[in-house]
């Protein structure tokens, strides 16, 4: 049966429900700038009605739960795009360095090639001239130095990408550890049925960071724990357990391989910062190194072949068939080992400018200078300097496409993050209106308690006398 005291109870419930809602609102406002925070709502529901002869009578309101506005699909999508951003950021960063090494003015390889063959042209004007022979030696030393320098810088860029791999693996392990710990805490907290909103917010921040570092897939189990695996299927997190990745140094050049348990997963990582680093370290930079080496080896061997067939300026002229450059042991590493034959460097007369043995014969100098115009590279379609131009073109296009992919995915990411904010973010205007709504409701409930109180007083006053 209905009475005044149960009416007071309705008032009490209303006060505490509105107060809870006010607190949720103020918590939203407080977290307006917190990364990963999802807007929360107090879910208000009427308490069960009491049956009366005239029908069910309402018993007031209660807060059934505090709900966070979360769009899982959007967040998954953001994770995927973030992987691309991480990858292209890494590639663009390292290729930016390569670009400076082989760039338009810095490297001087192109200019070195031109100057070297020009010096043989100059020598052909007077094969007996010792100063012109020194000109050849100086141009050759310069050419060797520019090749060695470019090769050294490329190796530096590659090895710095390699050490970044180790750092990134460490970062990944920290993040998967955090996610596993949060998984356990969330599962524990939600056993009772309530949502562990704050813990979930922290976990989505960690997941997002993890997406930036490598390509992952994840799904949420019924108990709220998230399982994470690499795109290729290596498990990273299951429930409260994280599988740490290990970075193992292999080979003489200290290249780091990544292992999950006993499996080497280096080649299966395609995306995220780690994917980008591996792409730069294992595919892009080695390809440039190989192209530079091929060019170096072919300059060395072709100049040597012609030079060895000539005769020098010694008295009497000797045709001992000496090499002009130190022959490359193999194509790989030819650029790094590019150097002038010490015998030639030590005595300008040992440059074989002629073929007949007469001091003024310049036939060999002309032949060597002419190598610059022969299309011997890339299947007989490119001269030496054209081949270097092609290498520059390749580096340029790779860098350009990485940075244009980066700006596209950044723009997409901004759009997605805006959508996530629209779904989960805190709008101060909206919260201001909520403040008003709950404040007014609280005031009205207080007013209602006042009315019930007056009624009670009236009753006591009237019946008490």
């Amino acid at each position, binding site marked *: 049966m209905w009475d005044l005291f149960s009416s007071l109870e309705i008032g009490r419930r209303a006060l505490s429900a509105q107060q809870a809602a006010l607190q949720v609102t103020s918590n939203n406002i407080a977290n*307006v*700038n917190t990364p990963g925070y999802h807007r929360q709502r107090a879910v208000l529901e009427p308490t069960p009605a009491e049956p009366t002869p005239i029908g069910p009578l309402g018993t007031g309101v209660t807060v059934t739960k505090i709900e966070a506005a979360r769009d899982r699909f959007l967040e998954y999508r953001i994770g995927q795009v973030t992987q691309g951003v991480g990858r292209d950021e890494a590639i663009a960063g390292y*290729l*930016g360095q390569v*670009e*400076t090494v*082989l*760039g*338009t003015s810095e490297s001087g390889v*192109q*200019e070195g*090639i*031109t100057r070297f*063959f*020009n010096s043989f*042209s*100059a020598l*052909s*004007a*007077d*094969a*007996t001239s010792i100063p012109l022979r020194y000109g050849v030696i100086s141009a050759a030393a310069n050419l060797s130095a520019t090749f060695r320098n470019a090769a050294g810088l490329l190796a530096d860029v590659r090895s710095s990408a390699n050490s970044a791999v180790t750092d990134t693996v460490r970062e990944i392990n920290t993040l998967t550890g955090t996610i596993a710990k949060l998984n356990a805490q969330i599962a524990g907290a939600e056993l009772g049925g309530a949502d562990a909103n704050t813990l979930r917010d922290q976990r989505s921040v960690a997941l997002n960071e993890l997406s930036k570092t490598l390509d992952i897939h994840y799904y949420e189990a019924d108990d709220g724990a998230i399982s994470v695996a690499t795109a290729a299927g290596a498990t990273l997190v299951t429930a409260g357990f994280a599988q740490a990745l290990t970075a193992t140094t292999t080979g003489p050049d200290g290249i780091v391989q990544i292992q999950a348990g006993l499996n080497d997963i280096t080649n299966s990582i395609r995306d995220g910062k780690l994917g980008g680093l591996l792409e730069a370290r294992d595919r892009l930079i080695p390809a440039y190194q190989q192209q530079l080496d091929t060019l170096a080896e072919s300059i060395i061997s072709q100049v040597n072949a012609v030079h060895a067939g000539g005769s020098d300026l010694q008295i009497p002229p000797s045709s001992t068939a000496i090499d002009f450059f130190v022959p490359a042991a193999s194509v790989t590493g030819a650029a790094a080992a590019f150097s002038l034959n010490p015998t030639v460097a030590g005595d300008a007369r040992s440059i074989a400018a*002629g073929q*007949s043995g*007469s*001091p*003024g*014969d*310049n*036939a060999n100098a*002309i032949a060597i*200078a002419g190598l*610059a*115009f022969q299309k011997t590279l890339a299947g007989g379609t490119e001269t030496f*300097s*054209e081949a*270097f*131009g092609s290498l*520059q*073109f*390749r*580096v*340029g*296009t790779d*860098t*350009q496409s990485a*940075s244009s992919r980066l700006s596209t995915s*950044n*723009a997409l990411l*901004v759009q997605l993050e*805006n959508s996530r*904010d*629209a*779904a989960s*973010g805190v*709008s*101060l*205007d909206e919260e*201001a209106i909520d403040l*008003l709504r709950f404040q007014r409701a609280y005031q009205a409930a207080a007013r209602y308690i006042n009315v019930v109180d007056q009624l009670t007083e009236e009753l006591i006053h009237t019946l008490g006398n």
Partner: protein
Amino acid sequence: MRLTPSTQNRNFLQNINDLQNRLNKAQDEVSSGKTVTRLSDNPFAAAQASKLMSVIGANDQFIALNEQLLGRLEVTDSALQGMTRSVDSARVLAAQALSGTTTPEARLALAQNVDGVKAQILSASNTQVNGVFLFGGTQSNTQPFVDAGGTITYNGNDEAIHQRLDRSVVIQTNITGQDLFMGSPSVFTTLDDLKAAILANDAGAIRARLGDLDAVSDRINAANAVVGNNLQLVQQLQRALPENNEALQRHISSLTDANLVESISDMNLTNQAIQVSLNSQSQIQHLSLLDFLR
């Protein structure tokens, strides 16, 4: 759509970043005068420019070497012309000796003049440029013609010296002394014989030597014609190569040079856009319902 402060901030930052990048690029273009300062700015243009620069570099070298070659060919040309004149004067001496009215004294004077002509030709045949003997074949650092007690010996050889004039043309640039003087009839032997014939007043022998002198003269003229042709070829290339380089340079410019008017106006526009954007953001940020509720 719910607009949150972080959405606004993110959009604002993105716009400002884009604008700053554009401003930076425009400033780069204005200060360097180039649209392509990195390979990735325009890979095709950068690689093309790099290849073309190497062609220009090689052409520059050809131009410098051709200039030297022109000098050598001109000296060769004038030496050959001097020889032709000397041979002509020997012919005049022979004609005088044949006139029939000569006294022994006059013949002696003519014979001495023939010696003078021989000395002139010997000197011309040892012409050198920068220490390089022009008529010694590839023995170019040894004096080719040596007078040993009246007999002239040739220390040079018959080897050709070539030079590349541009990417494709290679020509022989020397005339060997072997060709010119030592073949039969040799100019020096002919002059010696002429002198003996004049002294002996042997009209038949003098006539025979006149025929030899014609042959020598023909040979020198033929060589001179080759040198003349080479001179023309080199001069023509010296006009073509710089023109070619200018065309290449213009091509590189069109690939990589900035249009300054465009870059500067782009820089100003972007600068304005940044200011407007900053102003409007500072106004928008003050808009909040919280300010209006009392």
